[in-house]
């Protein structure tokens, strides 16, 4: 992006004109904690502004406010110098703000054209004429992007990057002024990413303002004109991309000078534990690439990484929820290749999933039924008698041990608080007595008190010899870990011993600032 187009220069030169988009002093808090605190950003026509920050820095919240999905507690938004009220996605669409998310909201069974038509301003009746007009419009959009997607192919048959282009194309059907792109290249190949950069150039030349959110700092530096860094919900700085480096950006993101931890390798000799799970070269492209590590008996291992680094995908491979393309595992020295979570559970490996409501619980069922679900799932013989009284007793024991606050064990889990629901999900797997427990974001949406209790439980389980793998985006949580693995873009890039596993160091490793590229 070194050759900046003339139009672009003009746009940049016209500093006196009102910015295309301005967000001023935006604050937003969720239950007492500040997600955003007086954050301001400004975007000119033809400018690419990157938003950077660690997990939870407030980037997504800012974009959600702009999209009308969340409402700000304080602050103002100006579009073309005029104050804008955005209280719903409809409002933001009317202001010609477009959003292209990772989770593409396309209809898989519709063709690319049909999907793009949904973004069209042509709200006329569905006659032949309109279709033709929409098609012409779609062609124009593609012309403008310099990128063609087969319009009559169903979206489900398109590659991920083509789908993304359809989604982008759809947002441009409405002649967007501002396009916000959230982690666009997360599942792209290099070549596809290059094509995206070309498209961004085109958009810039057309005077579209682009808000670019990405964890990949090299990419940010290549694509954007300016970079705004957020940290813990606060604005840190905005710097021109041309005058900064990955290292400086990481410093801003982390919040202080990043020490060089290359010496970490020497410290890696933690006390040797009896091996339990050994993973060799586990691969499922593009999210998990050649991952190898070991977990010992009674060891708590953290798995750090940015959102989208492939941590959940790795966990799903370990329990057989997805099939690996390559690699092998052993449990206690025995080959371990589960083809379903059932088999993993039978072999003593359980995954406590990330989404407790959609993946963990039957909300309309009782605490007892939920606590027994994994025990039912681990049972091979389906006609084996189910004893309600015994299951109630085992549930009560778990309720007591985990300190789950219930009025009665027959209460529906939907009535429990987030922390207690989480304890039910963890408890249901612990009931089966696993040898390895994988916890994916165990404390999301859990209040501070329950959080500490959950840490205590994890510690006590490990003391009994259970091995634990904790995935978390809240790096402070890794305080309970014996060591922390770091994943970046599908690869395991570091193995950090406990005494070095503090938040700042892990964050910089996640952004790839440390020189260490492989586990020594």
């Amino acid at each position: 992006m070194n050759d900046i187009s003339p139009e672009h220069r003009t746009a940049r030169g016209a500093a006196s004109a009102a910015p295309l988009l301005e967000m001023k002093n935006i604050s937003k808090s969720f239950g007492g904690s500040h997600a955003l605190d007086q954050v301001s950003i400004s975007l000119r026509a033809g400018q690419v502004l990157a938003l950077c920050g660690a997990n939870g820095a407030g980037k997504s919240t800012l974009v959600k406010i702009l999209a009308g999905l969340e409402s700000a507690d304080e602050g103002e938004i100006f579009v073309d110098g005029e104050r804008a009220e955005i209280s719903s996605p409809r409002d933001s669409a009317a202001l010609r703000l477009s959003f292209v998310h990772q989770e593409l909201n396309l209809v898989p069974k519709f063709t690319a054209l049909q999907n793009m038509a949904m973004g069209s301003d042509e709200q006329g009746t569905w006659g032949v004429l309109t279709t033709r007009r929409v098609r012409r419009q779609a062609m124009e959009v593609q012309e403008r992007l310099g990128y063609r997607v087969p319009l009559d192919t169903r979206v489900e048959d398109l590659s991920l990057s083509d789908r993304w282009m359809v989604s982008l194309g759809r947002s441009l059907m409405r002649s967007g002024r501002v396009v916000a792109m959230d982690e666009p290249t997360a599942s792209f190949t290099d070549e596809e990413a290059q094509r995206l950069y070309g498209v961004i150039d085109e958009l810039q030349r057309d005077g579209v303002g682009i808000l670019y959110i990405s964890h990949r700092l090299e990419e940010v530096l290549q694509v954007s004109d300016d970079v705004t860094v957020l940290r813990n919900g606060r604005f840190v700085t905005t710097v021109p991309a041309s005058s900064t480096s990955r290292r400086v950006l990481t410093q801003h993101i982390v919040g202080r000078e990043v020490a060089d931890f290359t010496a970490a390798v020497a410290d890696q000799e933690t006390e040797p534990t009896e091996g339990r799970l050994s993973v060799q070269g586990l691969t499922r492209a593009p999210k998990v690439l050649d991952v190898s590590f070991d977990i010992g008996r009674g060891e708590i291992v953290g798995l750090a990484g940015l959102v989208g680094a492939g941590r959940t995908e790795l966990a799903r491979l370990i329990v057989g929820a997805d099939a690996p393309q390559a690699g092998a595992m052993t449990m206690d020295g025995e080959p371990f290749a589960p083809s379903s979570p059932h088999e993993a559970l039978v072999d003593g490996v359980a995954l406590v999933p990330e989404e407790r409501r959609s993946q963990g619980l039957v909300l309309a069922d009782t605490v007892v039924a939920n606590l027994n679900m994994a025990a039912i799932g681990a049972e091979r013989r389906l006609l084996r008698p189910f004893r309600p009284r015994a299951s109630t007793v085992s549930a009560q024991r778990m309720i007591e041990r985990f300190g789950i606050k219930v009025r009665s064990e027959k209460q529906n889990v939907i009535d429990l608080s987030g922390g207690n629901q989480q304890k039910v999900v963890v408890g249901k797997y612990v009931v089966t007595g696993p040898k390895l427990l994988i916890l994916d974001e165990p404390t999301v949406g859990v209040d501070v008190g329950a959080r500490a209790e959950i840490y205590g439980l994890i510690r006590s389980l490990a003391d009994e010899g259970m091995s634990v793998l904790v995935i978390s985006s809240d790096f402070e949580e890794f305080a309970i870990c014996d060591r922390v693995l770091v994943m970046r873009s599908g690869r395991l890039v570091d193995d950090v011993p406990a005494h070095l596993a503090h938040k700042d160091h892990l964050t910089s490793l996640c952004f790839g600032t440390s020189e260490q590229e492989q586990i020594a």
Partner: protein
Amino acid sequence: MTATIEPPVSPAEPAQPTVTRSGSSMRWLGRYGALLVLGLLIAVTSILEPETFATTDNAINILNQSALAAIIAMGLTFALVTGEFDLSIGNVASLSGVVACTLMLKSDFSIPMALAAVLVMGFVIGLVNGFVVTYLNVQALVATLGVGTVVIGLNYAISDGSPISLDDPDAFINLSFNRFLGIPYPVYAMVALGILLWLLLNRTVLGQAMQAVGGNPVAAELSGIRVDRIRVIAFAVCSACAALTGFLLASRTGSAAVAAGDSYLLSAFAAAFFGSAVLRDGQFHIIGTVVGVITVSVGFNSIALIGLETYYQYLFQGLLLILGVGVGSLARRRAAAA
């Protein structure tokens, strides 16, 4: 397509639900409202027609009328509990009667052999349903509609479209009309199967797994439950019950008409959905389904005894379904809001 017809409850503040007076009475209405309907129905008709309705003979008659509908509806309950649908049950029942009579007439099958044959057939059709739904990943509604239509085709291929009557139907007919301790055999079949299926659903690992799959298939899968296998078994149980119904239906007349069992499809769905509002918060269960079937039978019986026109039966059944499920759902929502 989940087994619960619970309205989505807003995730806001799940902390401590305060139980208010209106909340608890609403909850009561949601759970016992459907039973209240049955009680009222019995009370009113008993007052209106004390001599004909409130008699032991009529009670037995009503149970006998309910037996076949209950068997097919209990089977359907398995599919519904697992979060699936089965639109082929009526067709399977029809085919079952035709196959049973054909085997007895043309191949000299004994009655038990014919029964075993149609049960196996029903089971296999259920496996096909389950395979299409899980392996081919076709929606249950579409899959069972397709399989059901194929079943109609087989039925016509076997029967040539005309009813099949046994030459010597007495022994077969006796299955439906013989009584033990004054109660006809089909009632025993209903009770025995009801107990068996209740045990299967509530006292086995399989039944618990089915309820988990119906409640949240993703959570069930991640809890180690083999979701696809469970679904296939549910379809198989459902179809086998439909085949049993068809067999018993044919034994009433000693002959099988090509479409004899078709009408059970809608009544089974109506009973199971009405039953989901009985005692439980919108979950399908065996006892609820049986109550649903009996409520419909009592209603039909009352309509006949009071001397109302036949069309009242449809009005009654339709309204019962809508009110039973609708009021239950509304009451629960009110209870949750209170």
